[in-house]
């Protein structure tokens, strides 16, 4: 394959006649606009997510709002914060619970159970102040729905890292080896079957993979390895690996096919075996593509929501063991975003998690870009 150098705009003018056809110029303009829109959209998404997370970053939640709320509203005001009851003849319980369990005494004549909540209302408004400090966010407990909300993201970071690590540890070698097989060792007909089938696997809905892991993989692994927890980072990692393998396979296979055949022929001519040629000559030559494939796989494992939501157990634990359940960023956002009240601290924190995800993916891709360019240049010059 020859290197095709794209002429620069100035060079182009000299030997390519600019088209006079109106139709083609309109099409060219449209394509430019669409490409520009795609880039702008990405920036807009980032801007929107950042805007929702901004109150958090600006410390709007760092002072507790309790001072304001208890000053402004008296107790009688807060007692009025009950919805109107449509059928007050329905009461919670006629039986009086013993003292130790329920300190409040149910008055049978006061038939509205919201009296219980009246006593608790005071506690609730006091605790509703959002104590978001840096210490809270960097803490190790994630309990956002609580009288004292805790937004520690450390367990989420550790959880995401664990599942991604397992997914790549299992998925990347499998994908790369499968691509090696398909590119160099498989007979042509088998290759024609394998490649489309693995690419179909890429289109598999992640919900189905998550469900499959939840029902079967968890129990199978528990029987095999004797895990304490049936749903843990390992099970989640396997589900993610199923999602990652097709990506790594496809891109690695394309990269391997793009390496000039002359390299393979030369290596075989020098007396290397098929495996030596594939593994020691062709794979390093395709290294930039393989690296890009793995990084894309990491990006996919990082952002995958449904598999993590169903198969990891969603426990915000700080632990190094792979056999413990974890809670990932995307699963947290997916599970909790539906309930948050817009504008609250919890809402901002979830968007902040989205910003973090975006930053990590962006950094990964940027590193891929820069790293690949450097490597590619070295490879081409070094031969």
């Amino acid at each position: 394959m020859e290197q095709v150098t794209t002429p620069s705009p100035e060079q182009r003018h000299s030997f390519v006649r600019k088209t006079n056809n109106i139709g083609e110029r309109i099409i060219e303009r449209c394509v430019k606009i669409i490409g520009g829109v795609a880039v702008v959209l990405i920036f807009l998404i980032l801007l929107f997510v950042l805007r929702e997370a901004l109150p958090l970053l600006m410390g709007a939640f760092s002072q507790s709002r309790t001072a304001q709320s208890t000053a402004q509203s008296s107790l009688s005001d807060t007692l009025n914060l009950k919805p109107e009851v449509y059928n007050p003849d329905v009461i919670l319980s006629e039986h009086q619970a013993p003292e130790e369990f329920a300190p409040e005494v149910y008055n049978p004549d006061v038939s509205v159970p919201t009296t219980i909540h009246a006593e608790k209302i005071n506690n609730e408004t006091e605790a509703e102040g959002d104590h978001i400090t840096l210490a809270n966010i960097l803490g190790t407990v994630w309990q956002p729905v609580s009288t004292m909300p805790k937004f520690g993201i450390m367990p989420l970071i550790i959880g995401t890292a664990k599942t991604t690590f397992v997914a790549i540890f299992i998925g990347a070698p499998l994908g790369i080896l499968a691509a090696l097989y398909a590119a160099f060792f498989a007979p042509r007909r088998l290759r024609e079957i394998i490649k489309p089938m693995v690419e179909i696997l890429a289109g598999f809905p992640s919900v189905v993979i998550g469900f499959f892991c939840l029902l079967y993989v968890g129990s199978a692994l528990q029987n095999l390895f004797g895990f304490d927890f049936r749903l843990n980072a390992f099970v989640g990692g396997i589900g993610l690996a199923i999602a990652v393998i097709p990506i790594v396979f496809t891109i690695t296979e394309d990269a391997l096919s793009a390496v000039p055949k002359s390299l393979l022929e030369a290596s075989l001519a020098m007396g290397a075996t098929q495996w030596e040629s594939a593994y020691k000559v062709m794979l390093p030559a395709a290294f930039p593509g393989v690296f890009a494939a793995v990084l894309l796989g990491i990006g996919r494992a990082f952002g995958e929501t449904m598999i993590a939501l169903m198969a990891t157990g969603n426990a915000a634990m700080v632990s190094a063991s792979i056999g413990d359940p974890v809670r990932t960023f995307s699963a947290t956002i997916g599970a909790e975003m539906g309930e948050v009240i817009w504008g609250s601290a919890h809402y901002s924190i979830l968007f902040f998690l989205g910003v973090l995800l975006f930053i990590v993916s962006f950094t990964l891709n940027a590193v891929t870009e820069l790293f690949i360019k450097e490597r590619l240049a070295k490879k081409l010059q070094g031969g």
Partner: protein
Amino acid sequence: MNQQINRFRNITLRVLLGCTFIFSYASAQDNPRKPVLTIKGSDTMVILVQRWTEMFPDKSKVQFQVTGGGSGTGISALINGTTDICSSSRPMKPSEVKQIREKYKYNGLEVRVARDGIAVYLNVNNPVQNLTIGQVKRVYTGEIVNWKELGGNDAKIVLYSRENNSGTYEFFKEHVLQKQDFASQTQHMVGTGALVNAVAKDPNAIGFGGIAYASGVKPAALAFNESSRYVLPKEEEILSGNYPVSRLLYFYLKERPSGLTKEFIDWVISKSGQDVVNEVGYLPTKKF
């Protein structure tokens, strides 16, 4: 030959395009002003609400849209205006009532539609059967970590809970955990069905959920304290208040109902609506 194929293809494409337009126009027409009633909220109640919409005598006059997502999701949707009725397995918090009042100048309307008990689920092979509320609390806050402390096998207790957008989660946290935090190793499952499935597969698991979901697991007999009677979540015990963890299930609205909405709600709390409740596994609000 090529020209003929091309012409055929062009005609087919144009006919298909025309059909698409006609079809979409027609389908937009065939629901002449049927009012849409959206009911969003509790996952615990979603099957019950679906059954109500199916058994509603005037259901041909209205189009129902029923979704789950959790009580918190439903209340948020009510505040944000994306649902007409919100189903919730917990009462509204003062902060939520405040938001409704700010937006709609009304405290919201609460309709008590059914009664439910929360069962603490154990695996059927677990020798433990009786638990006090205090023990359940200490298990879920992480103080008790081994089944042998409760008279069972020597095995680590595996905790399952609902996600924090669930009314069941909030109710359990408030009334059983007395507002303390869950232990960090508690696994959060999406929906009571997933939770029950997990407890059924794990011999050392403990979970909680509405009594209607007990399949493949056994409910523990709960007592207020050591000296009280251990009570299984049966209908008479819950209705009489002997079972410690019972609650009401609610519909919330942002305004007083009128028209078809009022008809639906009145039917739900009437005897015929409450008869449906028993079929689904919950309990009626009162004895009719």
